[in-house]
């Protein structure tokens, strides 16, 4: 009986959390459309989320593209289909691996940093100070970060896609003895606009998720270092899981026959 009660409590707690996150996301979107706006904060967020995530997204994409080329080559050799390496690397990168790995890397870097920053502001009463200075914390802290992440993630995904394809190209040409011109031609010929477009849309959704979860957990941070640490962990874990779940749903919507 107590097991059922515990399961019931956990389920209710999960529903309550989903409700709170949904309300938080809705409030953020609502505040997006109403002044005042904080362009300076938005600029800072663009720089912090976009520009400073470029190295980690680029490196991840490069090595993933290279590994993908090796795997497809090895797998394709079983069916004498080694020639598909360029097109599969390109499609795999732009449809799936670029947006998902980019989103996960940004979740690790950005959701953690947003949650830690806002959580620290909360425990040091800086958020209370904002309110007493007639500044809405959602508008000032959440809206610029969520907007910046939603806009900049597609750009990061596009850069990651290109670097990932370059990684596949480097491995394909230098290690697997592909002809460079043929590799490039195969890559370009088999890619369709929606392959790239769907990945960029996924990037925007993942950006929204990452920043929203970072802000949500930061604003709900408990007291002290332990509270901020937990908020940071929760932000990374929840945004990672939501990215993977959203990726499945979006793939189903975009590519189901």
């Amino acid at each position: 009986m107590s097991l059922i009660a515990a399961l019931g409590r956990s389920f209710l707690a999960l529903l309550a959390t989903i409700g709170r996150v949904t309300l938080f996301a809705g409030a953020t979107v609502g505040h997006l459309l109403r002044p005042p706006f904080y362009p300076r904060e938005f600029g800072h967020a663009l720089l912090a989320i976009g520009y400073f995530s470029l190295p980690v997204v680029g490196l991840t994409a490069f090595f993933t593209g290279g590994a993908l080329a090796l795997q497809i080559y090895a797998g394709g050799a079983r069916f004498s289909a080694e020639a598909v390496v360029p097109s599969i690397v390109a499609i795999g990168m732009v449809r799936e691996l670029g947006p998902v790995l980019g989103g996960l890397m940004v979740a690790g870097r950005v959701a953690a940093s947003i949650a830690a920053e806002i959580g620290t502001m909360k425990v040091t009463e800086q958020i209370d100070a904002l309110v007493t200075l007639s500044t809405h914390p959602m508008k000032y802290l959440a809206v610029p970060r969520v907007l910046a992440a939603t806009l900049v993630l597609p750009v990061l995904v596009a850069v990651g896609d290109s670097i990932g394809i370059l990684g596949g190209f480097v491995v394909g040409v230098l290690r697997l003895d592909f002809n460079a011109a043929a590799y490039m031609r195969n890559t370009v010929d088999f890619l369709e606009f929606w392959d790239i477009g769907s990945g960029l849309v996924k990037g925007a959704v993942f950006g929204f998720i990452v920043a929203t979860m970072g802000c949500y957990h930061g604003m709900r941070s408990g007291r002290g270092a332990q509270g901020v640490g937990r908020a940071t962990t929760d932000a990374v874990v929840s945004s990672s899981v939501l990215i993977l779940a959203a990726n499945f749903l979006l793939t189903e919507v975009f590519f189901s026959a």
Partner: protein
Amino acid sequence: MIALHDVHKAFGAKRVLSGVTLEMPKGESMVIIGGSGTGKSVLLKCILGLVVPDRGRISVDGQPAEGGDRDAFLARFGMLFQGAALFDSMTVWENVAFRLRRGRDKLPRPAAREVAVEKLRRVGLGPEVADLYPAELSGGMQKRVGLARAIAADPEIIFFDEPTTGLDPIMAGVINDLIREIVTEMGVTAMTITHDMSSVRAIADRVAMLHDGVIQWTGPVGEMDRSGDPYLDQFIHGRADGPIAAVR
């Protein structure tokens, strides 16, 4: 005048305020004393709307604190937080001028900086501090910057939450004197929360003691030592024996 009537607040099973009734006359400096964890800060946050009371009424000059134009309501207040609560990502002058750069009467950047530097001077800090970041300042300097931010927009009411906590006695005395000077000079209504008795004697016109969720005693600071209230006597003399349990 700030008036609280039968204000209650609980966090889960923990009752913090159990019917606080208190009036703070306009232009006076009221100090709220009480042990740690007795709800002094919660009381102050209830007035500002940072914490929503479960029950009771709070009004400022007859107007209810909740509802209405929040920006206009909050524009009447300045607040010095316990840890100063300065924004780490901004320079000192940007912290001080934060409110001046927002809202209907927003000042241009150079004018706001000028006002900030003047307010910093008022709290004893030179213009060379203006471009530093809060992390580069000592605790006492951060408190002064917090004080400058609290008075930057010339508010009618200023709240001071534990203004001398964490400061050495000399710096605490400097902050106490500054608060008293500023309160007198600006003619504001001030409410200070502290358990530092030297602050009470330096800052207060009136004193209220919060204990067990209610106002245990209130009166002019001059009557505090001869109140005859055993709770207040124990508190101001810092005795372990008395009606207030030493371990709470």
